[in-house]
């Protein structure tokens, strides 16, 4: 087809110059360039002139946690490349031969940063998702073999994960996650996730960008250097591998980003914006933070050491073009040359270490691999049922199914059962004080990536004696109780932006408010009053607080519910969305939020809302009855229908229900949760039934 856009040339603009000369500009001025929020954009913004390079000579003199390195040879270079259709991870010999595409992610995904394991046999990488309408979705870490085979997902939220860096002993991967971004460490097998840093500052939108921080290990594995988010200045920090002694390594005007510790431990490469913020180049600093100096005059970013420490790969715009390309230079900044023959865009280089026992690089194309998009479900069969007893909160987290079972109705105490979702076997019984009783079930329990949290009330013989949070460490199955400064809590508990959110009142019905709690310290960091008599269904997404308000007449909740957005701190209403369908019917269940969308059920429809404005992004013909949840692959599962006994999956991309399982109406299903390959349904009578998906 000819370029269809050319027909625009048939239309001519009206003459407006006189109007322009007379016109008084509106006060809101657009800016000429957006902040360079993400590394890729940084590369873009570099002015393109590789003329008159003059090189500073790097001096690897002073020590600082240095350590003798084993003899390692330089292998292939992995990178993220764009071939005109999609972004994939590739590997290539440093001379440009043997280009191999390693991933086959869909064009709704972006294969991003990658990092080689120290033995050169595996690659950790980032897959960034996109929504159909182009908004960015969450990014997660994956690990694959050097030839692209056996891709496995390492992280599964919450929030985005990016910038993987393999520990020198190959057992752990440091990475960035969350908003504000923090450095986390996870076992290379996906076990033992923990947060290393406690960063709270930083520009919200910058940290949303799923870039930055870029942790890099010292070669002895004792320290990690990273670049925290900051809009005006970004400095380099170091932290011990156990999370202690977080301290500043280097402060200079402008941004210092993308640190990379040298294989000999003596120096750290980084990208600096230069003092005026626009002259990006590759710098080195001694590992003790002294002697920062520019390595080459070329506008460049994303430096990566060769494993033998003799060369540096980096990204820069190809001279005279708009396209990012990969370059290699000597460690002293001399002999800059482009890696030829790469896809039209190439970024995020990472260099493969080759030890003697390491496999040679692949010479042939790898076999096609599975993409991380959800596979269609052809059968859904009702499987085993286990008796757990009257229960409410239900969650799948950290590889286990967790359900809070009522232990003592008088004190509203529970026992959390930890269940193996593949066998249905009970692995642990953990006594807790919290039992968030909800008639719709399911809510009141969340996972923050490290701990399981349950909201509840502590009871004395006189009645409720204060709201509590229960924290369970999945590593030890131990529970701890944290007191909240409220008399009574509701069943709402949300994890968003690195914080826990719940609702509570001083005494029943009095001074309702939304509490924001730091899961690291257990402290309440903000309170937002709720100006409503009847409310419920707390939703927090990207810091936007929403709550359902219901009107009450004659002690009966009437059918006109409204979802309102509250201004943090003041409780002023910022936006309102009607939560009833065209027949005036509200849903019997509360909204949930997930990955940038609020899902609001009404009597007859499911609405997808913009969490900031409340704008209805989409409407789906789905009569959510009981519990429902939005799962990471973008689909929505619900207990639908009048009897809450139709287990259905909605594919928002097509707008269709593509899986439907009829459950018994008795006992009444009250809550459901998605686990890998199955759905677990909790009933009013305390049974858990597994629905096996294939």
């Amino acid at each position: 087809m000819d370029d269809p856009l050319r027909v625009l040339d048939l239309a001519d603009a009206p003459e407006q110059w006189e109007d322009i000369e007379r016109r008084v500009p509106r006060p809101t001025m657009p800016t000429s360039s957006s902040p360079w929020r993400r590394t890729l954009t940084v590369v873009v913004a570099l002015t393109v002139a590789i003329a008159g390079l003059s090189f500073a000579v790097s001096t690897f003199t002073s020590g600082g946690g240095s350590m003798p390195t084993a003899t390692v040879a330089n292998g292939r270079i992995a990178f993220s490349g764009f071939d005109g259709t999609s972004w994939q991870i590739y590997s290539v010999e440093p001379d440009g031969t043997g280009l191999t595409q390693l991933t086959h992610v869909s064009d709704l995904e972006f294969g991003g940063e990658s990092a080689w394991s120290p033995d050169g046999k595996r690659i950790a990488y980032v897959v960034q998702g996109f929504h159909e309408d182009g908004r960015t979705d969450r990014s997660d870490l994956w690990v694959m073999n050097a030839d692209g085979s056996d891709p496995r997902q390492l992280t599964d939220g919450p929030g985005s994960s990016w910038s993987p860096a393999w520990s020198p002993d190959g057992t752990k991967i440091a990475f960035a996650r969350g908003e504000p971004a923090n450095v986390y460490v996870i076992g290379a097998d996906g076990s033992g996730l923990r947060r290393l840093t406690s960063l709270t500052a930083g520009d919200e939108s910058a940290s949303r960008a799923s870039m930055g921080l870029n942790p890099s290990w010292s070669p002895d594995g004792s320290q990690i250097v990273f670049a925290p988010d900051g809009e005006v200045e970004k400095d380099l920090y170091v932290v011990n591998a156990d999370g202690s002694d977080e301290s500043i390594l280097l402060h200079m005007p402008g941004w210092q980003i993308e640190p990379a510790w040298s294989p000999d431990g003596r120096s750290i490469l980084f990208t600096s914006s230069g003092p005026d913020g626009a002259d990006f180049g590759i710098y080195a600093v001694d590992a003790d933070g002294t002697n920062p100096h520019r390595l080459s005059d070329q506008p460049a970013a994303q430096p990566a050491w060769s494993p033998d420490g003799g060369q540096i790969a980096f990204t820069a715009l190809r001279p005279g073009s708009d396209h990012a390309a990969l370059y290699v230079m000597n460690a002293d900044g001399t002999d800059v040359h482009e890696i030829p023959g790469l896809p039209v865009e190439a970024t995020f280089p990472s260099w493969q270490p080759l030890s003697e026992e390491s496999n040679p690089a692949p010479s042939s194309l790898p076999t096609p691999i599975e993409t991380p998009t959800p596979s269609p479900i052809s059968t859904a069969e009702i499987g085993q049922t286990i008796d757990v007893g009257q229960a409410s909160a239900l969650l799948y987290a950290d590889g286990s199914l967790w359900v809070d079972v009522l232990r003592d109705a008088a004190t509203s105490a529970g026992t959390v059962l930890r269940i193996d979702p593949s066998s249905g076997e009970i692995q642990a019984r953990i006594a807790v004080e919290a039992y968030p009783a909800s008639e719709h079930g399911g809510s009141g329990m969340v996972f923050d990536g490290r701990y399981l949290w349950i909201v509840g009330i502590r009871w004395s013989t006189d009645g409720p004696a204060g709201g509590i949070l229960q924290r369970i460490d999945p590593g030890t199955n131990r529970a701890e109780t944290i007191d909240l400064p409220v008399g009574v809590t509701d069943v709402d508990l949300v994890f968003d932006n690195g914080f826990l959110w719940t609702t509570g009142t001083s005494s029943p019905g009095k001074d309702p408010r939304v509490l924001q709690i730091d899961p690291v310290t257990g402290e309440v960091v903000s309170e937002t009053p709720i100006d409503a008599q009847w409310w419920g269904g707390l939703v927090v997404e990207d810091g936007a607080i929403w709550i359902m308000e219901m009107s009450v007449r004659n002690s009966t909740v009437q059918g006109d519910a409204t979802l309102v957005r509250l201004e943090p701190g003041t409780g002023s209403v910022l936006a309102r969305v009607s939560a009833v369908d065209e027949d005036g019917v509200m849903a019997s269940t509360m909204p949930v939020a997930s990955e940038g969308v609020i899902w609001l059920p009404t009597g007859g429809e499911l609405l997808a809302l913009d969490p900031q404005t409340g704008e209805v992004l989409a409407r789906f013909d789905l009569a959510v009855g009981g519990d429902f949840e939005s799962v990471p692959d973008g689909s929505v599962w619900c207990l639908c229908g009048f009897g809450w006994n139709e287990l259905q999956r909605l594919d928002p991309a097509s707008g269709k229900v593509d899986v439907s399982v009829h459950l018994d109406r008795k006992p009444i299903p009250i809550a459901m949760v998605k686990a890998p390959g199955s759905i677990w349904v909790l009933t009013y009578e305390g049974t858990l039934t597994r629905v096996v998906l294939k």
Partner: protein
Amino acid sequence: MKDQRSEVERTYREQKNRLWRALLAFTGDPDVAGDALAEAFAQLIARGAEVRSPDAWVWTAAFRIAAGEMGRRRTSELEGTESSCELPEPVDHLVRALAVIPRAQRLAVVLHDYADRPTDEVAAVLGVTRATVHVHLSRGRKRLRKLLGEQSDG
């Protein structure tokens, strides 16, 4: 000052048709396009020497102004709005097809494929990375081809 103004007028003469057409394709409304264009140039005059690259600046500014206006009006009101300006039939046909493509994809396709603006400028307007621009581009092109195919078939 006089020099600057004539410099802006020169930019206006050079850019106005292409910029207005691109804004029209993006907004679907000749009046919104004209207003965004006029506002961007009025701001360019007000900013004077502060703007070092008037050409790139005015494109970015005009599209941001238009996007802001679109946000205020909401798509539903824009589509099918009666305008003071009659468009040639093939243009109208194209604009209607573009209107059903998601905004970011439409913006990327129009700025990059019609107006030949560099990827980083599109990224700056959208506030996203180059990578995201390419995603928008490939999806937008696919969808536009499909839509125009459907229209000519039917």
